[in-house]
């Protein structure tokens, strides 16, 4: 989706257990949800 918008050189960081120990942990575990950091560039 990011590349389809025209961005290049997309990087994705390591998964983070964003919801671990929070009320939303159950849904997060059910759907394999983690937090990620993204970096992308608009062509120069």
């Amino acid at each position: 989706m990011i590349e389809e918008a025209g961005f290049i050189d997309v990087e994705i960081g390591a998964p983070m257990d964003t919801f671990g120990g929070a009320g939303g942990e159950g849904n997060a575990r059910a759907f394999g949800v983690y937090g990620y950091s993204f970096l992308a560039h608009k062509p120069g």
Partner: protein
Amino acid sequence: MAGKTPVDPAALREEVKSKYREVAVDPHGIFHFHTGRPLAKRLEYDDDVVGAMPDVAVESFSGVGNPFILRRLSRGERVVEMGSGAGFDSFIARQQVGPEGQVMGVDMTEEMLEKSRKTAAEMGFDNVEFHEGIIEDMPVEDGWADVVISNGVINLCADKDQVFSEIFRVLKPGGRLQFGDIANSNPVPDEAVENIDLWTA
């Protein structure tokens, strides 16, 4: 032009506003996500930087990743934060771009805007502004930003194609998008995708 979306975008916006209004006015309430300093530590923000920030700048933080972990911002850069909330990531951005940079937060929740503006004034940041708007149509000139940041916001928008198109518009050529967000590795059933309540839970 907006594409087909799984839920009504306006209805989803109202649900999101309602949820994050609570986070603004009652940051120590019970939510399905972590908030504040414990969350910042979980997401690997710099302890010294966060530790130096006043409680009011951190307590309503409710991001899901760390937009600065893959690359720091550079001094003097112009930054737009989409969905700036109470301003935590905008204040981190200000710390990185310095007094010669500019940070513009965009948020649609009145209580968050009020809180972020007050905190920016208390922190003495005259180059950090917060504007009312939605991230699918931001009040930002074409090509204004060196960097667009966001944290846990894009997943709350029904029309993601429009969001990325809008980011592309406000970035200058060669500009960067740095954001934190969630992604799922297991399939989500259609009935769950079409359930607005689950988008914010």
